[in-house]
């Protein structure tokens, strides 16, 4: 018998004569305390929770966001931005900077990680990614990394800028999972991100920028 068979046999004998417990999952317990009446309330809750863990918000519009992004890069003296130039938002940003006298260079994560690991780790100061949505209850962004926006885009660069459409903010995680039918097909990697990387491992003193980004900026499109 293999380890698998032995373990399963033992567990089965431990259950002999018992019946499985019914599924009495009560969604109200995980949804009702975390409901928000409207978009404004959801935004307020999201901003409150994420700001409490040092996330910065740029509240802007569909028309204005590229300017805001350029401003915040300039304020930090950053001249290179990792962004999916093949996606709509990347193309939009590229079009926006065309003809500007001073603009950051945009480049995409268009190779497998093996081809540029040390460059990604050592010389990418900032990234901009889209988000799938957000969760008001816990103050979390939802990201499903893809071929255009791979997993490490939101992890390795010290500054992560996340684009969020206000209409995509939902009340709580249960609602997200149910309305979007997550159980029917999960991506290889799904992420909830609720602030910049942090640790309290030394004397419980909170320090930001542990292994991931030291700074997270959410560019919130309030009219989207």
């Amino acid at each position, binding site marked *: 018998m293999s*380890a*698998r068979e*032995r*373990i*399963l046999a*033992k*567990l*089965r004998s*431990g*259950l002999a004569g*018992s*019946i*499985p417990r019914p*599924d009495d*999952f*009560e*969604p109200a*317990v*995980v949804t009702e*305390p975390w409901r928000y009446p409207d978009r404004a309330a959801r935004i307020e809750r999201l901003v409150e929770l994420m700001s409490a*863990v040092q996330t910065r918000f740029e509240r802007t519009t569909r028309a204005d966001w590229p300017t805001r992004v350029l401003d915040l890069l300039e304020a930090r003296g950053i001249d290179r931005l990792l962004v999916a130039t093949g996606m709509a938002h990347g193309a939009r940003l590229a079009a926006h900077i065309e003809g500007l006298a001073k603009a950051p260079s945009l480049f995409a994560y268009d190779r*497998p*990680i093996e081809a540029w*690991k*040390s460059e990604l*780790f050592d010389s990418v100061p900032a990234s901009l990614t889209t988000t799938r949505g957000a969760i008001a209850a816990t103050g*979390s962004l939802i990201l499903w*990394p*893809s071929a255009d926006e*791979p*997993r*490490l885009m939101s*992890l390795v660069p010290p500054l992560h800028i996340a684009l969020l459409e206000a209409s995509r903010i939902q009340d709580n*995680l*249960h609602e997200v*999972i*149910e309305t979007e039918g*997550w*159980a029917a097909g*999960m991506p*290889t*990697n799904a*992420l*909830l*991100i*609720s602030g910049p*990387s*942090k*640790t*309290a*491992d*030394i*004397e*419980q003193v909170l*320090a930001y*920028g*542990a*292994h*991931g*980004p030291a700074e997270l900026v959410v560019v919130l499109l309030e009219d989207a």
Partner: protein
Amino acid sequence: MNQAARIPAVELSSRQLKANAHEALNDAQLRTNMRTAMDSLIAKRLAVMPEAEREPLRELGNHVRARALSKLPELLERLEARLTANGVQVHWAETVEEANAVVLDIARRRRARAVIKGKSMVSEEMEMNEALEAEGIESLESDMGEYIIQLDHEKPTHIIMPAIHKNARQVAKLFEQHLGEPYTEDVDELIQTGRRVLRKKFLDADIGVSGVNFAIAETGTLLLVENEGNGRMSTTVPPVHIAVTGIEKVVENLRDVVPLLSLLTRSALGQPITTYVNMISGPRKAEERDGPEEVHLVLLDNGRSQAFMDAELRQTLNCIRCGACMNHCPVYTRIGGRAYGTVYPGPIGAIISPHLVGLENAPDHPSASSLCGACGEVCPVKIPIPDILRRLREENVKPPAAASAHPLRGQGSKYSPGERSLWRMWVRLYTSPRLYRAFSFALTRLRRLTPARLGPWTLNHAPPRPASRSLHELAREHLDHDRRGADR
């Protein structure tokens, strides 16, 4: 190197809990560090868990875990099938030796020279670092707390905050000594040093190892929570990811993790959620540009199935490893995690360790509790820890040969025929009125013979001396007196 301070192999020091505790109690620095840390964790949890939300959520959390355990074999098979369909390779191990062999096999096949680890208590059970290093493979912890204690050749003393027993000064000295960094007690600078050193290691690692917080059978998903990002690094940057977990970590449906996640992060850290919730459902797909080429899951038993055999003890496996029971334990707070000498300290350690290492190797663990009940009260999945502690105490004083439906490894290791006959006498005394009267008469009349010293009790207290007359005598006298009064 500070080899002396290293926690020796589990089997050795866990038997000396009492001696270890004695030593820990005399360590003023440790006691201050622990008290401060626990007070703050207690306050943080309370601040984010109003009772009206908490109690229904604990109830639901308990039901989710109990349901998962009530169909554990089936869920493990479903998990395996889903993961396999997703491209993850699933391995089973009854013992830590088997689990290490699985990891070493993969490492050899990949010709791995360096392994980077996210936080995993199961890998601590396996002593995976030692197993890899014995084969000449570097195995480095990347969680800041784990990294700090690995530098000091220590083991975690808390399951969530492994270096909770150290203060900034101690960490500063460690970094100065081992990394040649200029001495600083500034926590931000210390963390930046850790970040710098470890970033290089993520780049070079051939294999990333992680634990698992919840394994979801429905979707074949491994869910990991963390604040630092080292877990995401370890599971994304190296070409191979090996997740190790206990067989009890599976839940049935994706939605089942909603209450558990909420309970876990709030009970553990007082956070509504951790910075990262990382859900992994497979290796890198052809079109994807990062993520590991291979993902493995090692399912480890290591004594868990023993707890599973008994309906009461099975509840031990509800545990979601939040650490709240430790934070609220008056014993843990005073002696710290090292004194337990087991991978899991505190109340959860006291009830799980006997299954992992055998009662004979953790004989005093079930007794390292005042049974104040705090652990059971805060446990987010409602494990009746005090009841289980009492049960284990009982199991450990049964005659070793006594037949029992679900024998525990090492049970009866504290059995003493002398003590047993003493208690038998006690029972006789208290069940026979005649004997009891004679005994209490003798005790009250010979009260002056009470010894002046009674072990540790008399260090701080007056010796207990029986009253000159027993309560029975007094009551009887009182009644007689009343009756006489009534007659008059």
